[in-house]
């Protein structure tokens, strides 16, 4: 008998003979924050992320240009910015080892936790979001859901092979509880509110 059969058979004969119905999970969304964007910003900052403020009627790109000053290798995977490392030229993930800044767009964000969702569709090469020293994430303020219950209703989790909720930068406090950003992955994660071009032209 294969291990598969052996395990399944043992499980079957040992199942507790008790009635345990599967409960329905409510969305827990009765109390809505006044602004999902403000709530998202607060949650993100608690988790060590940076929120790039865009003054009204100004180009959001300016906030990023300040950050990029002095960066040698910039890999942009969004049309809004031009870098000097094209993701299309990346053959293997190791080609991204020297990237200082990667710029990507979030599929959506979660106000409750300050998370942004990135998948293979946004990243091109998944490793870019971890091998880069710093990550800049563009977010359309219309793409924010209230909490994780709403997040898991999104189609990304059924369609994409890889999807990751990033909540601030890579962090550790494994030594005496001292918090450090940039344990193995990115040292900083910044979110720039920037409406999608398609959404804008549709208006």
């Amino acid at each position: 008998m294969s291990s598969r059969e052996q395990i399944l058979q043992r499980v079957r004969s040992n199942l507790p003979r008790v009635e345990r119905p599967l409960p329905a999970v409510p969305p827990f969304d009765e109390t809505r924050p006044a602004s999902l964007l403000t709530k998202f910003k607060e949650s993100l900052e608690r988790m060590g992320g940076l929120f790039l403020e865009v003054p009204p009627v100004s180009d959001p790109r300016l906030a990023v240009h300040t950050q990029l000053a002095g960066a040698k290798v910039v890999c942009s995977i969004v049309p809004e910015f031009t870098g000097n490392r094209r993701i299309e030229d990346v053959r293997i993930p190791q080609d991204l080892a020297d990237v200082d800044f990667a710029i990507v767009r979030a599929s959506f964000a979660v106000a409750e936790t300050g998370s942004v969702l990135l998948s293979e569709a946004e990243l091109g090469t998944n490793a870019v979001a971890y091998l880069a020293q710093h990550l800049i994430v563009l977010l359309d303020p219309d793409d924010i859901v209230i909490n994780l219950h709403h997040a898991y209703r999104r189609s990304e989790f059924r369609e994409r092979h890889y999807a990751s909720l990033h909540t601030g930068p890579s962090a550790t406090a494994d030594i005496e509880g001292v918090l450090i950003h940039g344990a193995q992955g990115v040292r900083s994660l910044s979110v720039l509110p920037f409406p999608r071009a398609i959404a804008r032209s549709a208006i």
Partner: protein
Amino acid sequence: MNTVTKPPRTDERQLHPEHPTEDPHTILHNGRRLDHAEGSSRPLKSRPEPQPRGAKVHGNRPVDQAEAAARFIASPEHEKMHDARLWDLRQKRDREMHAIPEWEDLRSLASAIKEHTLTHLDHYLEQFEASAQANGVHVHWAADAAEHNRTVHGILKDHGARTLIKSKSMLTEECGFRPYMASVGIEVIETDLGERIQELDNEDPSHVVVPAVHKLRTDVAKVFSETIGTDPDNSDVHYLAEAQRTATRPLILAADAGMTGCNFAVAETGTVAVCTNEGNADLSANVPKLHIASIGIEKLIPRLEHLAVFVRLLSRSALGSPLTQYTSHFRGPRKGAEMHIVLVDNGRSQRLAMHQFWTSLKCIRCGACMNTCPVYRRSGGLSYGATYSGPIGLIIDPTYNARKFSALPFSSTLNGSCTNVCPVKINIHEQIYAWRRELVRQHEVPFIKTALMKAAGELLSHPAAYRAAIGAANAVLAHLPRFVIYNGLNAWGKHREVPTPPKQTFHSWYRSNRGGAS
């Protein structure tokens, strides 16, 4: 003119008043200290002290947890840091709990979802396998630890892989994975900072979430100076963490294969959800061309909507942080890469049949019960001499080896705090008590403990004898010289003052005040 030396600024919450209240590198936001991930909510800093080691394990002989705990307590810097660090995590957990009005609803849901899944586990395992295969994932089954290790080795051999980067997984610890891989010539590189420290020090993780929490910064400096060449006199935490990042990065880039554990496996979509703070699981899975995920069969949950419940509870319970920095969902291989899943039983299906203990399979390995346990906080995880330590360890370990871990269920005060903080509502302290009875029944408890419990049982079942004994004991206790109470034979006199005995027992007070019928 005399110069007056100002006393240093002190903070009563600190371990040592001479240390500055805040490290110059403390990460602040709007002037407030950030404490997400495992970050402590207050500055803690130790004084150097040699590290006490864990339990002395002799084959199948019962592990003497109390002996190792005594050595940990005899190292006051370690004991103080450990106690303060874990209590801080517990307090952060309470803060997060109070911030969510639906907290108790989430706990009830989590418990009900897990119990439903475990009572239909055959169905969900088959569904998960089918979903994963439909996504292009290779699914393997392993009946025990040895088969798990052989299976992973087989996959690596097929790909000619010699080096493996991996994220933390309690299942692989349970399987003795690292020693096995060393024996077959595969180099394993742990990528979680805490786990890497433990790997380099040849020590097991002492906690399911913070593996090196029993170590001081100076212990880490010693390990790193001997293994990755850091300055032995520099125990600055930022320096140590950066040195480790720099040393590990080339190993990540050069690795032939990557491995992760799994926090939750979703049957309907074949999703493997992995939660880390460092992003190291994502590096392990996304840099090499081969990703292997080892999954205990109890990790199954039915649908994505259920994942929300568990993800909301896990990091809040574990660390008092709303979410881990990374919550990653692997459904299938990335383009040009391969993904394998190994579903591991290793005693879980047998545990399902134990009517008093099957609900321990609900555990999501958050460590909240460890952080709140007064015994665990003061004795360190390595004193248990087992993969799983703390309250959850007391009820899981004997299922693997009732003789070797026969003393563990006695390392508890049965205060019930573990049960109160458990996000999936496992009745941990009741199961600890049930294990004591079970082990006595199986004759795994030493004669002296059994004899004492029998005598106590006699006394407790005869009210008149009990009252006479208590009255006499209180009278004697009040007049005994210290050396009689605080000696080596009375474990309750160690490290604590025996309470002042009351002048009167409750029963005699009740008789004289409320009087009459008795």
